[in-house]
């Protein structure tokens, strides 16, 4: 078959992708205090600024613990998006100031990916951020992006954590302060560092009964000032112990049992062991990041056109080693819980299966499979969470690893006897929030892409059956399947 090549591969992406809908000098992701401040500063300096925030997220997404670990403890009020929107404006008067300063503000708008040309990609028209609301997705070009995405809750597995009523401190604070939509009445707080004590005090101030704090270390960890305030309330701190299990019924948690044998009645267990800077978007743009134990985990390094502010850049450094603290919790919880404790809720992966690198239950486990484990895998090289994820499915569920990613890395470190930082973090991939196909869809695909769209590379000789080579059929095949590609 004679092929006359045109010098152009119309099936290649070159120039065919959808263009961004608009361009801003600055896009700020996250309308918390630091994001709003950054947006206002830039707008006052005359810049064209777009400020987006995913909140209020839909009730369905909150049920998937997006963006925080809500643990199913939000009231029906969170289903009412208008009320939620109002609540955000009420709780953040700076938003008005930002709009007055000329900032364009989009709430209920998720930034699900940031893309730019670099190693392996040169086809993007410019650096873009992908946005989506409840109707559609679109792209926005920018000169500079400021990530003010905050920090998210660090979840910790123990028997019974996979039921409604186990939630994170940041989520609880958001429900209490911003939305007035916390559905619990009686909480137990895990941790006694600043975050835990602040959360306990806030909850109590909002009329929630705080039954106590649980501290794995021998002494409370918060600042003297916070501990003094806590002492005034009479809320006890149970030191040198950890939670062994949570019992519950159809509405979720009803009580918690501690390693010291104590059983505490509560409807909510609030994990306030740590917060993790939300660096998902940095990962999607293949940006640089580094582990900083005093600032809560991996933090963005910052680059010429990317900056991070607020908790996304790292928690305030007050000399506390967050990683060491978490690892102590993880070690204690591992010691006192059975191996069949679920680590990945979405995929129901137990610790035994994670450490055994075993496949999910719907697959068979023949003898050679059962003989495999993390230990045999480690003989081939250092542990890599992405590899473990592929084998066990831990972190592959609809919560996109928000609940278990950090735990898996910690467990692998413990099991491999290596410091936490030597285990790479499982990669974050776009979309960094679960987004329905019909919302993500590019319904206005450029004609050049539609016209040349091929199932694979559009190479006219690739799929001709060997039997047909050199026959009339070869030509028919090309005419039928590849017209337009080559002259």
């Amino acid at each position, binding site marked *: 078959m004679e092929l006359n090549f045109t010098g152009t591969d119309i*099936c290649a992406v070159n120039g*065919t*992708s959808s263009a961004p809908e608009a361009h801003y000098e600055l896009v700020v992701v996250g309308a918390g205090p630091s994001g709003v401040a950054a947006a206002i500063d830039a707008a006052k300096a005359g810049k064209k600024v777009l400020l987006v925030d995913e909140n209020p997220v839909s009730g369905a997404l909150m049920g998937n613990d997006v963006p925080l670990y809500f643990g199913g403890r939000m009231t029906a009020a969170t289903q009412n998006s208008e009320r939620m929107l109002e609540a955000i404006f009420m709780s953040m008067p700076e938003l008005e100031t930002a709009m007055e300063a000329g900032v364009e503000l989009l709430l209920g708008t998720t930034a699900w990916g940031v893309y730019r040309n670099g190693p*392996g990609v040169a086809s993007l028209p410019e650096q873009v951020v992908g946005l989506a609301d409840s109707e559609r997705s679109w792209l926005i070009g920018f000169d500079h992006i400021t990530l003010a995405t905050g920090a998210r809750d660090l979840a910790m597995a123990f028997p019974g954590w996979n039921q409604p009523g186990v939630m994170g401190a940041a989520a609880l604070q958001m429900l209490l302060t911003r939305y007035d939509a916390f559905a619990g009445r009686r909480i137990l707080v895990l941790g006694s560092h600043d975050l835990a004590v602040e959360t306990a005090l806030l909850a109590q101030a909002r009329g929630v009964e705080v039954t106590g704090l649980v501290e794995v270390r021998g002494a409370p960890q918060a600042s003297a000032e916070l501990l003094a305030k806590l002492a005034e309330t009479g809320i006890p701190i149970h030191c040198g112990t950890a939670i062994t299990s949570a019992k519950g019924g159809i509405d979720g948690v009803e009580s918690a049992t501690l390693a010291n044998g104590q059983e505490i009645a509560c409807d909510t267990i609030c994990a306030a062991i740590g917060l993790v800077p939300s660096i998902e978007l940095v990962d999607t743009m293949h940006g640089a990041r580094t582990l900083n134990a005093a600032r809560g985990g991996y933090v963005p390094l910052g680059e010429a056109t990317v900056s991070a502010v607020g908790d996304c850049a790292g928690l305030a450094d007050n000399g506390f080693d967050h990683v060491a603290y978490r690892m102590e919790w993880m070690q204690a919880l591992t010691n006192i819980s059975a191996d069949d404790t679920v680590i990945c809720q979405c995929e129901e992966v137990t610790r035994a299966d994670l450490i055994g690198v075993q496949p999910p239950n719907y697959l068979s486990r023949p003898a050679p499979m059962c003989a495999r484990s993390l230990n045999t895998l480690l003989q081939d090289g250092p542990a890599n969470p992405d590899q473990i994820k592929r084998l066990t499915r831990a972190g592959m569920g609809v919560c996109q690893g928000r609940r278990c990613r950090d735990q898996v890395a910690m467990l692998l470190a413990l099991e491999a006897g290596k410091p936490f930082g030597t285990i790479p973090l499982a990669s974050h*991939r776009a979309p960094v929030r679960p987004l329905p*196909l019909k919302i*993500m869809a*590019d319904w206005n695909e450029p004609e050049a892409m539609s016209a040349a769209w091929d199932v*694979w*590379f559009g190479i006219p000789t690739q799929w001709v059956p060997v039997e047909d080579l050199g026959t009339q059929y070869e030509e028919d095949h090309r005419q039928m399947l590849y017209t337009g590609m080559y002259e």
Partner: protein
Amino acid sequence: MSGSEVVIVGGGVTGLSAGWWLARSGVKVTVLDKFIVGWEASGRNGGGASHYQSPLFDEEQRMWPQMDELLGYPTEHQKERIIIAMTERQWEQYRFVAERHHRLGHPVEVLDVKQVQEAVPLAGDNCFGGVHYKFGGHANPQRSVQAYAWALQDLGGTIEQHSPVTGFETAGGKVTAVKTATATYGCDAVVVAAGPQIPQLMAQFGIDIPLAPARAEMIITEPAPMMPIGGVDGHKLYGRQTMRGNLAYGGGPHEWIDVDATGPKDRPSTPLMRNLASRLAELLPKAAHLNIIRSWAGVIENSPDGRPIIDRLTSPDNVVVASMSGVGFGLSPASGHAIRDLVIDGACSFADIDILKLSRFDNLESDWREKRGWMPIS
């Protein structure tokens, strides 16, 4: 050749399958990979295993249903495929291919809209019809890669990860050792199955392997209810429902890139995810509400005619080179067998694979990439 040592450069499905086949013949095998097994294309593909265009097709079809048992580890292999037409043109094209299968003796059935929906409940009545391939299938690439690797170890083979091969030692027209930065592995024969890095490695022997690397993307949704047939293509998409229920799909534009001797620098995905999403929402309208939870990209190399290059060199004469040209996952049980035969017997025992010889490109123009427009965007 039992007792001899074969070093395999590249721990993707091709190298690992070859290693497994060789180990089954009693050969001592060492697989060297620059990172973790299956990290490149082999762990990032659509898992499709229906390569009727290939001389290795019959062997691909014969082997897959046995692989779980032979390897001893689950691959999630599932039989059959359905291809759904969403436009009149596609309907014409897919029936044309079906007719061809029929004449080649591959069992196919043309389905009307109702039959499509029975087999693929997520499909809608917006389709024109479908073609049911009662052959082929799909498997989980990541699980399969590891299954090969473990099975190979169970047979006494060795896998060295984090071991980029930097060069070779030759003597008397043969490669005698394979070198990494820190070690030298003596060998009786070498298999180079290094994907897009094959040209750089083979250039060390003064041999030009015409391959152009490109990046291709996929998306995956949260789980959907299990469908009777999970291997659902169509609307110019390829993909599968995983055994967990997720829909993993790819297709559409690729991007030509350059890869140097150290391999792809990165494998970024792009907003092409949105175009995959719209097509998948059209192909399976009852899944349109499902969340996309990840996207990714992988790098594959393509030969000028899009067919694999599987050949044993004449000089040095103990080197087998294997590039699968973008269609290597499904064919892996067969490509490994062919490579084993070339290494041990010098010829493929079960198929005529002359069409995969490197010599077919002897007269290739030096600007073949430019001619095809297969150049990276500058």
